[in-house]
């Protein structure tokens, strides 16, 4: 496990509100697969860099970028290219 001691780094729980708004459902318990190291983590476990104009969510194992989120006054943009899949239970 990558050791992260920077106190400004949070996790996916901290950005659950904007993700729920974008996806229309609760996202912290949704599993996804990192496109870089193929580890499966739930969104709440991803490391969150929030002190920037956008939010960067990284894999807790390899620190690769899994999701990027940018909010504008009219839209929420999400770059999912770092996730090979997200799994939503019916």
């Amino acid at each position, binding site marked *: 496990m990558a050791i992260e001691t920077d106190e400004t780094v949070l996790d996916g729980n901290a950005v659950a509100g904007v993700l729920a708004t974008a996806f229309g459902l609760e996202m912290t318990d949704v599993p996804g697969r990192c496109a870089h190291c193929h580890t499966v983590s739930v*969104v709440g476990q991803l490391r969150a860099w929030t002190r920037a104009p956008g939010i960067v969510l990284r894999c807790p194992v390899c620190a690769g970028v899994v999701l990027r989120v940018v909010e504008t006054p009219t839209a929420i943009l999400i770059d999912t290219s770092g996730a090979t899949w997200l799994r939503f239970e019916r």
Partner: protein
Amino acid sequence: MSIAPAPPARRPSPIAWRIATVTSIRDETTTVKSVTLSIPDWAGHRAGQHVDLRLTAADGYSVERSYSIASEPERGSDVEITVERIDGGEVSPFLHEVVVVGDRLEVRGPIGGYFVWEAAGAAAAEPLFLVAGGSGVVPLMAMLRHRTRAGARNPARLLFSSRHWDDVIYREELAALAAAGDGLLVVHTLTRSRPPDWTGYDRRVDDRMIGEVLAPLGAGARCFVCGPTALVEVAANALVRLGLPADRIRTERFGPSGT
């Protein structure tokens, strides 16, 4: 041929901002206050979930912060958050110095589905091990209040790291919950200063401390860790080394972005 009805939505619909009213404000410590919000059309929450708060200035500038809910689900739409004042922050000084009972605030929630514990089904009987650093205790307090209100008697332990004795959030209430004799033990560690007669832990959370406090609960415990990133890493790694399966350890990092 027939058309099947649409299945019921399993998850909540998109989250709408609502106007909540502040119904009480209470000092917890010199730097921490609890604020109770009455939220209309509150659908109920689970212990460990958050609300987002949005403040908007006259010029349209707005900031959002996520706060863990401190109150138990049984309290319904009177939703309590506990806020540590962060000097230089944008939201917490406002909540500490400006907001008064009767004020209205924009809120959405409940949010979160990963860092939650419910005293239902198997979880109500399993040992519960909670590790908190500072105001990371807030979602864990919701779990402990819920545990008591639900009448659960599962073995439960809270290991709570604070800097000074006077910084211990919910100190009296935690003592009262632990004195109820329903299986809860609260263990404090004080990292900066101790009262003269202190016999408890006097250092940061480490592997040995986690091992000692966890031991009576065994490797079948369900674990929740919330606090600053460094504490969360130490505690989660210690639990893995002690043999707990990763899927029984849930973590939430709490940090200065929640200012």
